[in-house]
């Protein structure tokens, strides 16, 4: 037993460890990434990065059928990718306990939408537990395995950005080693062909009803009685805001949010004059309670959008908040590509050639904004390549001449490769640029199948992108240093003129990747005519002062030299640091 401050994601990993989890598979995605990084620190747990969330969940399924406790971790949009196995896993049930940890991102801190995992879970008939702080994250994780095995079901542990990325005090326990369940061949349970699936669907419905009933007694739910004029029904981090604002109110804090513990909720409603449901995102709890014939309030007062806060509740409940000082105007500071980022180099070429880019998910999504402004689309992982293909099929080859697709190395292995196969198969002629920075950058430098290292830092085979692309039938494949702007420009121009599919692998490591040495930096000599051309690629290390003088911050600069390409008078030179 030890008391320490833990990140929500660390506590989830700790819970998995203490529950005796043996196998964990995941694809990185904010805000879920650190769960895998923490669980990988335990020798007793096999933990891996999978190329995508579907693979991760299927690995967890295999481990579970093998009799061990397993988990798969992902962000909310990752669950979309994994929803194919999830919906049917709900039918088959599990061997050893299986928990899918899904991290939602209300407020869209680092995502492409704000979807609510509870909606998916309802539709897939999978129970959901929702903790509200790090201690609960660990405890609920352990309880999730009990539920999974007792009710023969996968369980979703739902976290949100605020929980995953906040730290609070946790008391740790030791690991309970759980003996593997013996594997038994059971075709009617695990082979979901129609005759078996029809039978299993009945089991799913029965399980749902049983959980709604027995879930009322689950220790993860809690009633805190106080003033009975208004009773709050809430779950997850929203509970903390309710307590912050109304510490004396009666609160039903749900730990299981799917299926809802009906009788527990009804008993609570009967005790209070009025019921307000406080839940971030969709009115999942509210609408179900309303459908039972109770008039509860929720989204008519509280928004479906963004993260909640105590001040948000105060504005609704008391028509005022705590703010004293006016917000001062200050130039915005949105995220930007780092100094020395290889993506900036590629984008600067595309910008010069006035190209449109079908884009994808990663740091390079920032290529959409000023001053680079070359990315036109960003939908989901892998979509760049297929979107480009669709544009060609709709508008024809000529139209595509000033279009490319840009996709990161990790994203390409996630789901981009399928789209590339589709381009070959269906005779596409577009140009795909793989921005190969040797890591999963945006989420904080995770290994992937192309880096040669596993999650646990063991050496392994590194997928060779050139061979991979050639093997699926791409004839024109070029590997170019991402900072060789001349070669990039030439190849992109040529490819636009050729009636053949081209893949350009623009390769250079992420500037933040550990273990690199940057011996040089760029400096501005007195040849500078202050034209500002070097500011075009938008490197944060270069600034133009009020006096018109161009300065390069020597600490930030890593000597990539991109700015020197823009200088028409040769005033920017490389020197040793």
């Amino acid at each position, binding site marked *: 037993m030890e008391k320490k401050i833990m990140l929500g994601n660390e506590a989830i990993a700790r819970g998995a460890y203490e529950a005796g989890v043996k196998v964990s598979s995941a694809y990185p995605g904010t805000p879920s990434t650190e769960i895998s990084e923490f669980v990988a620190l335990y020798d007793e747990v096999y933990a891996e990065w999978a190329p995508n969330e579907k693979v991760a969940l299927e690995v967890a399924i295999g481990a579970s059928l093998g009799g061990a406790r397993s988990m798969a971790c992902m962000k909310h949009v990752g669950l979309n990718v994994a929803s194919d196995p999830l919906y049917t896993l709900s039918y088959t049930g599990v061997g050893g306990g299986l928990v899918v940890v899904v991290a939602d991102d209300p407020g869209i801190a680092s995502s492409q939408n704000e979807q609510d995992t509870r909606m998916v879970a309802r539709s897939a008939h999978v129970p959901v537990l929702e903790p509200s*702080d790090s201690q609960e994250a660990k405890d609920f994780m352990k309880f999730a395995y009990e539920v999974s095995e007792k009710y023969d079901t996968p369980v979703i542990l739902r976290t949100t950005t605020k929980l995953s990325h906040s730290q609070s005090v946790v008391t740790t326990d030791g690991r309970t080693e759980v003996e593997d369940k013996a594997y038994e061949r059971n075709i009617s349970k695990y082979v979901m062909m129609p005759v078996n699936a029809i039978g299993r669907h009945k089991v799913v419905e029965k399980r749902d009803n049983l959980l709604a009933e027995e879930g009322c007694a689950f220790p993860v739910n809690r009633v805190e009685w106080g003033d009975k004029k208004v009773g709050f029904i809430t779950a997850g981090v929203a509970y903390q805001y309710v307590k912050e604002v109304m510490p004396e109110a009666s609160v039903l804090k749900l730990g299981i949010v799917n299926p809802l513990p009906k009788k527990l909720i009804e008993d609570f409603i009967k005790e209070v004059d009025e019921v307000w449901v406080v839940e971030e995102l969709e009115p999942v709890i509210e609408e179900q309670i309303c459908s039972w014939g109770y008039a509860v309030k929720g989204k008519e007062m509280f928004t479906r959008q963004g993260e909640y806060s105590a001040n948000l509740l105060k504005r609704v409940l008391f028509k005022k908040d705590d703010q*004293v000082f006016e917000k*001062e105007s200050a130039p915005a500071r949105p995220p*930007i590509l780092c100094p020395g980022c290889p993506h900036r180099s590629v984008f600067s070429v595309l910008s010069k050639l006035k190209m449109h880019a079908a884009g994808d998910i990663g740091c390079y999504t*920032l290529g959409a904004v000023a001053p680079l402004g070359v990315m036109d689309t960003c939908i989901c992982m892998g979509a760049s390549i297929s979107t480009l293909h669709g544009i060609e099929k709709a508008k024809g080859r000529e139209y595509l001449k000033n279009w490319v697709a840009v996709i990161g190395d990790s994203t390409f292995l996630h789901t981009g490769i399928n789209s590339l196969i589709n381009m070959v198969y269906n005779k596409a002629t577009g140009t795909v640029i793989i921005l190969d920075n040797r890591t999963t950058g*945006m989420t904080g430098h995770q290994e992937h199948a192309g880096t040669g290292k596993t999650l646990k830092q063991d050496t392994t085979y590194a997928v060779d992108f050139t061979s991979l692309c050639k093997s699926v039938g791409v004839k024109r494949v070029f590997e170019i240093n991402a900072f060789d702007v001349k070669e990039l420009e030439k190849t992109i121009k040529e490819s636009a003129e050729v009636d053949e599919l081209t893949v350009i692998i623009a390769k250079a490591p992420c500037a933040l990747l550990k273990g690199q040495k940057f011996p040089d930096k760029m400096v501005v000599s007195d040849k500078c005519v202050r034209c500002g051309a070097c500011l075009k690629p938008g490197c*944060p290390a270069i600034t*133009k002062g009020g006096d018109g003088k161009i300065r390069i911050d020597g600490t930030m600069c890593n000597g990539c030299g991109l700015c020197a390409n823009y200088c028409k008078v040769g005033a920017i030179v490389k020197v040793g640091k």
Partner: protein
Amino acid sequence: MMDIMVVGVGGQGTLLTSRIIGKTALNAGYDVKLSEVHGMAQRGGSVVTYVRFGDKVYEPTVEEGKADVLIAFEKLEAKRYAHYLKKDGIIIVNESEIAPMSVVIGQAQYPENIVEELRKTHTVYSIDGDGIAKSLGNSKVVNSVVLGLGAKHIGFSEQEWLEVLKQTVPPKTVEVNELAFKNGYERG
């Protein structure tokens, strides 16, 4: 209850600083919550982290009108988050200036006299963290200088702070970080 915000630009080490504050409060027997920013927002963007400690902490973030102490590693970020302060809250600001992209490309102006303007409505303690760090021979210990100044106003003994600082910073930099912290602490 003590509500603290640590703000800066992605890469300035706000996260580590808030963790040191959190650990010091935990050692002193308080309930503690911290909230951090990961993912896209970290890439050179405006970064804010929160530390709350007291007998019982519910919400993990500090909200507008609640902050007792705002520690800013950069001037513009102090201005951006000053409205989070409560009436008598204080600002600890590092006199560093990092231009956001809109300023770099000439679409906006970096505001002038930020510290002087903030002093009109708030109690402000400013420090040349970068200069002091450089004089100590390691430009990376800015955070410890600024934290040192902040620590004086947050409470706990110098010893309690240093104990956590030593465990948190990279082993090779313990000595210089300690010097940096003390330098800031003495100016408080």
